[in-house]
């Protein structure tokens, strides 16, 4: 089995995870910028974080032979402070020059507030001006449906944004269709409690076109499993899917989307 982990917050994981992922067939890991579990007090804190994502973490992954790529942004959980967001967004263009950067992400909404919407629009504008791929976080639980609709509206209203260059993540049964119908890619996140289980993920793969779907573990410092993607691959085989179908979903699909960024170089 080979797979790409397109969404994992490795800065909050131990090197055991790197070793296990490589042993399970991981060919590349992609790390979106996210909330640290507390609000950073200044833009300087983000500067250090972006340096970690573009310099230190790729080196840590390389020790295990795993190519590491990053996405940059201010996470929606910290978007309530628009002034801080402006300062952080001003830092990002400098880091876009790094060879492991894939685009702007994970932007999006958390509680669907007006300030979150403002900061989302600023991120979308930044991505459009710098011709970057976009990775979008959709809100949790009861906020997901409304948030996903608001995000799709923001993205569709900007004519510079090509849906095929945007992945909207954390879809579930009530949002996957609206994301795919709008022409975007959709990510299914495998979590033990919230988001989606392997069985439900495969249900969605079987019911909707899997052409623009990918799976990810989004592992971080919370309850999550860095091996959720290969475990779901095994579940696919137990359900009767072929090795070829599993490879398309776990490796070829994320490879196809991410290869739109010239920095993403992973042999097929």
């Amino acid at each position: 089995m080979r797979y790409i982990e397109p969404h994992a917050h490795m800065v909050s994981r131990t090197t055991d995870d790197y070793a296990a992922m490589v042993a399970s067939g991981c060919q590349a890991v992609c790390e979106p910028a996210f909330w640290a579990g507390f609000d950073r007090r200044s833009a300087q804190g983000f500067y250090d974080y972006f340096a970690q994502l573009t310099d230190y973490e790729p080196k840590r992954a390389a020790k295990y032979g795993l190519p590491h790529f990053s996405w940059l942004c201010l996470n929606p959980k910290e978007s309530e402070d628009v002034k801080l967001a402006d300062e952080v967004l001003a830092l990002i263009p400098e880091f876009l020059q790094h060879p492991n950067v894939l685009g702007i992400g994970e932007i999006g909404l958390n509680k669907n507030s007006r300030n979150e919407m403002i900061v989302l629009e600023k991120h979308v504008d930044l991505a459009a001006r710098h011709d970057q791929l976009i990775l979008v976080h959709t809100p949790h639980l009861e906020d997901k449906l409304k948030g996903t609709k608001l995000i799709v509206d923001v993205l569709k209203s900007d004519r510079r944004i090509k849906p095929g260059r945007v992945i909207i993540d954390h879809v579930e049964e009530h949002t996957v269709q609206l994301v795919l119908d709008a022409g975007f890619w959709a990510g299914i996140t495998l979590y033990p409690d919230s988001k989606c289980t392997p069985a439900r993920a495969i249900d969605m793969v079987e019911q909707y076109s899997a052409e623009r779907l990918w799976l990810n573990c989004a592992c971080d410092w919370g309850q999550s499993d860095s091996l959720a993607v290969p475990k779901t691959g095994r579940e696919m085989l137990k359900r009767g899917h072929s090795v070829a179908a599993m490879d398309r979903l776990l490796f070829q699909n994320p490879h196809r989307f991410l290869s739109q960024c010239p920095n993403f170089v992973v042999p097929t």
Partner: protein
Amino acid sequence: MANIGSLEQAMLPRWHRNQMSATLVPMNTDARLLQHLDGLLRTQGATDDALLAVLDQVLKHFDCVTGTIHALNRTSGLLELRAQRCIPPVIMDKVSRIPVGKGMAGLAAQRKEPVQVCNLRTDTSGQAKPGAKETKMEGSIALPMLVDKAVLRGVLGVAKPVAYEFTAAEQGLLLQLGELIGRHFGLATKPAVLDHYFIEVRAKLIEVAAFLDRVDRAEGEDDYRIQAFRAALKQLESNQPERAKQILLTLSDPTTGPIPAAKGKSASGAYPGKE
């Protein structure tokens, strides 16, 4: 290799059980053919190339010249040709889509049992279409691809250029091959889904019941979360499709506009009804 207990064997997926037994008992040619073709389809899926490779192996094994694999299109009800060898171009139109009940393949699908003609050229039974004589074949058989003995997925057909009657043992192997191919023509059957998930989901159902009992025993008032939970439970009893989607919708914020400001960062899992 140590023998494993019968209960442990029963808990393994069916294909795995077959593999286990295959390692305990020396495999004969038939078992090797089944295992080889199963591996081929598991690796490649039911692609046109894979099906043609499977058909070629089946024809070789039975010393046949002509063969077809049809898949049942559940929407149209027609048998659609997925792979063939030595079907003359003049009858390809008729062979490419076959209504259930018509010709040998259609009859095998309708009856869910093998349909055999010892000599196509001289047959007067009416089971074969007149065009079948164009194949120049004589001994011919069509077999339903029955998964879990009940779910029709298609029809496998093979034929020889000489008069021939396929034995019961040969028919048995061809039926097994048909089931094997048929498994790759669709999603898991109901028995397979139940084998796979029933125990796991049964445990979750009891967890839900115990949770409701626990909430009832606890002191204090119900809040919006348990009210939303009980509303969502009604979706489980519905016979409508997409229950998971409907439950997620029931638990979602139904409003459409942004809220003035985020007062916290976390979500509770149910819409409280007000900000």
